[in-house]
């Protein structure tokens, strides 16, 4: 088997296993009685430990949410005159969607900051899961592409 394919299989299995592990540790490990919204108490952690984990995570989450808000804001405020008549004629509801994007991102950011402030477990778990999903998803996707890509052309038997 070519070395690239071995890397591909390794990437797929490793990323799937790691993501499975993060799902297991976030949703199952701590909840033998399935009362998942109550049982993890971050107040037991020392303040130093809590903030050393929560600040980087919250910073990444706020950065992503700010990017979302910024996109919505630009769509709302940018003034361009479309030179193509066919574009002017089409009904474009992107400004309405941009308003929603701004509202949603601001609400999520407020919720995130409040969650960190009251030491809610999910304020940390959700961003951590999303970041893991993006990175591990990318590794998985590249691995799949490596496995399924033919490195040479099919031999023409004729």
């Amino acid at each position: 088997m070519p070395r690239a394919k071995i890397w591909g299989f390794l990437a797929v299995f490793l990323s799937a296993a790691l993501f499975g592990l993060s799902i297991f540790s976030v949703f199952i490990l701590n909840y033998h009685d399935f009362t998942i919204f109550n049982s993890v108490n971050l107040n037991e952690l020392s303040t130093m430990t809590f903030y050393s984990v929560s600040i980087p995570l919250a910073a990444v989450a706020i950065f992503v949410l700010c990017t979302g808000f910024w996109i919505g804001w630009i769509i709302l405020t940018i003034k361009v005159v479309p030179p193509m008549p066919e574009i002017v004629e089409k009904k474009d509801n992107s400004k309405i969607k941009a308003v929603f994007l701004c509202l949603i991102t601001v609400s999520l950011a407020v919720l995130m900051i409040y969650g960190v402030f009251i030491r809610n477990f999910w304020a940390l778990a959700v961003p951590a899961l999303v970041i893991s999903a993006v990175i591990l998803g990318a590794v998985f996707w590249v691995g799949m592409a490596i496995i399924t890509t033919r490195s040479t052309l099919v031999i023409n038997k004729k």
Partner: protein
Amino acid sequence: MRVLILGYRGNPYCGGQGIYIYNLSRELAKLGVTVDVMVGPPYPDPLEEWATVYKIENLNIWSIKTKDIPGEKLARVFSPWNFVDYILTRLHMFPEMETFSFRAFFALEKILKHKRYDIIHDIQSLGWATVPMKGYGIPIVTTVHHPLTKDREADLQRNWGFWDKTTTILFYPLVMQGFVIRRVDRVITSFMEGVDELKKAFRIKKERVSVVYNGMDVDMFQNTGEPREENALLFVGNTEDTKKGLVYLFETMTLLPEYVTLTIVDDGPPKKLTAGDLIKKYNIGHRVKFTGKVSYEQLVSLYSRKTILVMSSLFEGFGLPAVEAMSCQTPVVVTTSGSLKEVVSPDCGILVPPQDPVAMKDAVMKLLKNKKMREKMGKNGRKWAVENFSWPVAAKNTLEVYKDVIKEYRSRR
């Protein structure tokens, strides 16, 4: 003087950067400057005759779907910067500039163990890592032909719907460029109005911007002596670029007599659809011809044979086709947008307001009817191009900027 030129793309056949790096490094070397070039792919033609080249890796995968990435590139995705590139491209960003800057930063650290530079010249990459590069104690200048805000505006004009607009906003790294450009020692732009444009887009102080006109190969772009065609207009440029204002050129064509034809040097349908759709709409298909991609020799021949070069641009950061045409003794009809009113002297062509097809029609007709005027403008154009836009002139002026920046930098320390 020892100069390090940084460019995230070095293709010498398309895209201004590669051509700029190739010619500027050659002419600077002729002026006695020791030139090193650190460049990303597509790599330039061999520069080793006059410069030391350091090649920086990049997979160039931003417009390719994962399943279409060639096997040998896929296998390299898992190296750290390639993986960053991969993730950001999947999020519709264009990370080439920022990852190039980080790669260049680390490569430079190794090079500086056995070399020193008097100045670093970044060619409009303006990646995040350009800022920590200042820690190496070398002044940094950057060339920005025009702010990317102009390109983003042009793209947003063409976009329809929320998703299209979102991906356009994500694509342009304006926050990064705005942050970095305010922290380099000097910005070089290619036209006077560019100073105001840069101030407007990135809040740069005017005294930190120098104007150096771009260069072009005046030896290559010379009239071939082939007979001129009558009533034949020429347009050179990317037909998908809204900034070129093609819609106004086509409107002009509808106002001109039927015997006036237009040749477009670019691909038409099916490769590029925008211009084709507009041509259908204005019903001028029988008068418009696309050449597709042409060699330099063919381009010089076209400039030499066609009657007038037309540019209907809404914005130009330099306007290379106008200068090339003038260098081939071809009169031009251009809009006054961006750099064009500086690049085209009124005795080499006619300037008209942008988005004004009637004014453009009048200017074209005035020239088509007057052969003597065309010949006179053609000769003036050649003289103007040689005196102002040849590469030796551009390199000499760039060197003056380097000297000024180094002097200012050393006086501060």
